Each structure stands twice: as C-alpha cells, then as structure tokens.
C-alpha cells in the first residue's frame, strides 16, 4: 500500500476517534434519558401518541412494537411509490413505480438496506425521495440504535423484566441523535456543492455542440437525503451513480466527510456500550476488534486495486496506474478502495466506485466484509449488536475450552442465550447461500447475469450477501429490477434484518432478568488483547466456515483465470 494511502487511513481513523468519543457521551446521555431539555420537548409528543414514557416493556412487547412500527413503514413507502403520479412534487411527471419494484424498495429502505433496483433520478419523484425514502433513512437507523441500546441495557440491568420503552427510544434516537447530525451535515454538504432544490431536470448546453448539443441534469433535494444516507448507514443514493455522481459527492472534502460519517455513530456506540455497562474498557475492546479487521481489509483492497489488470496491460495500458476501471478519476484508487471497505464494513452500501469493476480479489474484500455479518463497525446499531452476539459466542467457545460456565459482563451465558445467538448468526448465511443457489438454478435468476462464469456468480452472490446483511451495495452487472430478483431480495432483506433483531432482543430480555455475577479469578477478562483476538478469530472463523466455498467459486476462480491468462 502506498504512503499516501497509509496517511489517508491514519488521518481517517484519528479523526473518527476524535469525533466518536464526544458523540458517544451525547448518545448515552440521550438514550438513558438524561437530556432534560429533550424530555420536555418529547412530553407533549408522547401525550399526543398516548405513550407513557415511564412504562417500560418486556422484550417481546418491545419487539412487537418495533415490528408494528416497521410494518407500517413498509406500507407507507409502498403506497407513496405506487401513488406518486397523483401526488405533488413530481416535476418530471414520473409514473407510479411498478408493484414489484415498489415492494422491493419499501422493504429495502425499512430494513436499512437501501438496495436499489431502480435508478433514483429517473424513477422516484421528489416527494417519494423525501417523504418515503429519506424518512425511512431516519427511522431504520433509529431502529438499529434502539435495538443495540436495549441489548446493552440487558447486560447492564439485573433481575429486571423490562428493557426500555420502544416508542420513547425511537423518539429520542430520531430527534436528538439523527436529526441534529443530519441537519449540520446537510448544510456542510450543500456548502461544498451538493445540490438541494425541488426543480425539474435542467437542460444545459454542452461544450461539444456537434456530438451532443444538450445534456439533461437531474435536480432534486439531494443534500438532505445524502446526509442521513451516510450518517444512518443507509446508502441509498438520490442518483443512480450514488456517491460517484458529482452532485452527490462533489469534492475530495465531501468524499472524506462521507466516509467519516458512515462510521461515526457505529464507533460512538462502542463508547455508549462501555458507559452503560459501567466499564469503558469493554467498549474499547470491541472497537479494537472492529478496527483490527477493518485495517487488514483496507490494506488488502488497496493493494489489490493498485495492481494493474493483466488483460489491459496486454493491450498496452501502462500498469503503473493500477486498476482505474469503474473509478472516479477525481478520487483515484486509495480513496475508492477505502470508501469501498468502509461502506461494506458498515452496512451502508453507498459507493463512489463500481465494485463490479474491482480486481477479483479487490472485489472479494467488500464481499467478505459484508459476509462477516456487517459487524466491523457495521450498520448504525446493527454493527454493535451483531458484534456483541459474536462476543457471546466467543466467551461460550472460551468456556468450552476451559470447562467453565461462560459469562460475559457478569451475566451467565446459558442454553437459551446460545440458541438465540445461533439463530442470529446463522439466519443470514442461510439466506445468502440458499438465495444464491435458487438464483443460479432458476431461469429468471440466470437471465439477470451480465457476465457468465465466475464473475456472474460473484454478481449473484454479492446481491444476496448485500441484501441479507442489509448492506445495499451491488456488483452493478446484475440486472436485478425484475419480479424474480425484487421478490427474492426483498425476502432476504426482511428476514436478514428482523430474523436477527428478534433473537437479539430475546437475548436482551433474558440477560436483563439474570443476576449479576461477581468477578472471580476464573472470570475470562473481556477487555484485554486476548479477548480482542478471540473475538476477531470467532468472527473470522464463522465467516470462513460459511462462505469460503462460495467465494472460491466466484472471485478466487476469477482471479486465478485472469492471472493464468497472463
């Protein structure tokens, strides 16, 4: 990896840490109800909604509330897309979105996936972009935050039946965390040149009047959507080209800030975890495990992309430039590879380069980051609760090795917790591998593949991995806006999201009810380097066991074929 790439990575991590620390303090204060001014503002809202903020819920009631909330979100987003032709703020007169695409998109945005089978600027009216998609960007991110806070309360409380009030938590996460951050970030982005208007598309005169006299520039409320798209690790672009579009990512500054904003809340939540359980070292340990995997992935992706494609070198292309196919010249290799790893380590899915055009092993890195379960920083909330599930598995494995009953943060880990952990960890690989098998066996699935052979297999594997792990980025070669893929991926997104959230909340409820054990000489320390390595090993091992055969059929074979041809 080149010197500037190392410097960029170091600057990125340092700035992230600097911002995440105070944000963690603020989030913890808000979610624990210590933001007094906010509570006064919330009070009339709770009264209006008939919510008693002092009433806390058991985990099942909390989970059902969350499911009702998100189910209504699916209906609202579906209806807005289907009725957009009749609704205002549609200056291009766009038709209603097709039923299968509307279904896919509704589930996609509610599950924080933001997989987009459609092109934003040619499909969605301004109203749909704002009222359906941007609103869900907030609410799906809030859903992730409240789930992880409920889980952390499960660790912190003892002999308790309740894990919080879902309506109060959702209100606080939205009003006092996501909205203020997005407002500030949207203003910064607009200041850097991201557009924000409600105009129809603008025809402009080009500088090449002979070959292409006019060009149409899409307009719309981009900055407001872009801010929460990154902060909420949603990833769904206003434009089809996402953050490779100059109106969605105009400068090197916006590129850096967008990368920073993806990891900001996931990193801050590690400190929230440490504060709520009363031992900041626990938060640092989880953050260290995430950072370790992340740095290795960045180095691997950057090195792969700094390598030239031998097929192009054979045609006389200078190999010194590395692999620039599918990348913005404005950003180059280092910023594209870093963005790709960040967006797939977190379940964001925004892209500033086309992952489909990465070198086979360069593309395998984002794919593997998704397949690890989006726990390396991960999505807002979902990254940390996923990592804590792996932490429980890690202490269980350690307990088996030394013959002691496993415990984590003073809570005994027993059969019920391990059943829930098993569901949470196995549901996504099941969806990915079964879904990929169905897609490559079924005729409508094979029809969407642009490139036959291992690359085509990678396209399908990537799509299912991205959907089930709620990432949303794509290997662009797959034509996925078909009834078959819209239905298949919608199922993967829904069950990949809530099939994990439900057992995580069940763990929260079970842990909250337990007594806290005293630390003894036999307690496994979970704040030191040994546990960090154990945690990284557990995440890596589960990922390898699940996905190595599939990766071997896709990017690994493609790599061998490409370099054998040399």
């Amino acid at each position, binding site marked *: 990896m080149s010197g500037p790439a190392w410097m960029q990575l170091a600057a990125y991590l340092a700035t992230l840490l600097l911002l995440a620390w105070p944000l963690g303090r603020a989030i913890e204060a808000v979610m624990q109800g210590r933001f007094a001014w906010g509570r006064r503002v919330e009070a009339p809202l709770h009264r209006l909604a008939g919510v008693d903020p002092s009433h806390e819920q058991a985990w099942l009631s909390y989970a059902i509330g969350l499911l009702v909330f998100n189910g209504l979100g699916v209906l609202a987003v579906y209806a807005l897309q289907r009725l957009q032709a009749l609704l205002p703020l549609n200056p291009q007169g766009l038709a209603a979105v097709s039923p299968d695409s509307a279904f896919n998109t509704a*589930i996609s945005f509610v599950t924080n996936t933001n997989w987009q089978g459609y092109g934003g600027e040619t499909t969605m009216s301004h109203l749909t972009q704002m009222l359906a998609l941007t609103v869900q960007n907030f609410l799906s991110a809030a859903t992730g935050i409240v789930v992880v806070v409920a889980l952390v309360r499960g660790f912190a409380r003892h002999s308790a039946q309740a894990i919080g009030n879902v309506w109060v938590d959702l209100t606080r996460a939205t009003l006092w965390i996501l909205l203020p951050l997005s407002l500030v970030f949207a203003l910064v982005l607009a200041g850097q040149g991201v557009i924000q208007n409600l105009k129809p598309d603008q025809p402009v005169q080009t500088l090449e009047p002979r070959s292409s006299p006019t060009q149409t520039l899409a307009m719309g409320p981009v900055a407001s959507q872009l801010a929460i798209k990154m902060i909420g690790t949603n990833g769904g672009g206003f434009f089809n080209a996402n953050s490779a579009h100059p109106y969605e990512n105009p400068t090197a500054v916006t590129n850096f800030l967008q990368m920073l904003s993806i990891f900001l809340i996931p990193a801050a939540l590690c400190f929230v975890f440490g504060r709520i359980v009363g031992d900041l070292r626990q938060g640092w340990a989880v953050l260290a495990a995430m950072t370790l995997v992340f740095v290795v992935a960045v180095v691997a992706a950057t090195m792969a992309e700094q390598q030239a494609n031998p097929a192009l070198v054979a045609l006389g292309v200078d190999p010194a430039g590395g692999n620039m196919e599918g990348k913005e010249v404005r950003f180059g290799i280092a910023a594209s590879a870093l963005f790709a790893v960040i967006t797939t380590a977190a379940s964001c899915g925004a892209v500033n380069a086309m992952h489909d055009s990465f070198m086979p092993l360069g593309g395998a890195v984002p794919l593997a980051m998704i397949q690890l379960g989006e726990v390396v920083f991960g999505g807002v909330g979902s990254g940390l609760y996923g990592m804590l599930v792996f932490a429980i598995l890690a202490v269980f494995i350690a307990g088996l090795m030394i013959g002691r009953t496993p415990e984590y943060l003073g809570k005994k880990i027993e059969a019920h917790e391990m059943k829930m952990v098993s569901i949470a960890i196995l549901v996504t690989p099941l969806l990915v591998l079964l879904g990929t098998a169905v897609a490559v066996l079924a005729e409508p699935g094979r029809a969407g593949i642009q490139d036959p052979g291992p690359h085509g297999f990678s396209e399908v594997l990537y799509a299912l991995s991205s959907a089930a792990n709620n990432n949303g980025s794509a290997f662009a070669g797959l034509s996925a806006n078909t009834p078959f893929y819209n239905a298949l991926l919608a199922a993967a997104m829904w069950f990949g999201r809530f099939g994990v959230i439900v057992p995580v909340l069940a763990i929260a409820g079970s842990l909250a009810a337990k007594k806290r054990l005293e630390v003894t000489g036999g307690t496994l320390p979970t704040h030191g380097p040994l546990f960090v390595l154990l945690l990284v090993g557990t995440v890596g091992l589960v990922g390898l066991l699940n996905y190595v055969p599939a990766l071997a059929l896709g990017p690994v074979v493609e790599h061998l074929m490409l370099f054998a041809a040399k």
Partner: protein
Amino acid sequence: MDIVYLLAAAAFWVAIAGLAIGCERLRTRRVAA
C-alpha cells in the same frame, strides 16, 4: 398485483412475529423446567 405484494408483506410480518413468540416460548419453557 398490489394485493399480491401486500399479502407477501403481511406474510413476512407474521413470520417474524411468529419467530418472536417462538423465542419467548423457548425462554418461558426453560424457566418452567
């Protein structure tokens, strides 16, 4: 076609609600045992 997709969404929702209830039953059965 709208009704087909709305029914599919309802089925998805019911399946996850069923998972939640199943998880709770597992927990209470453990306590009873």
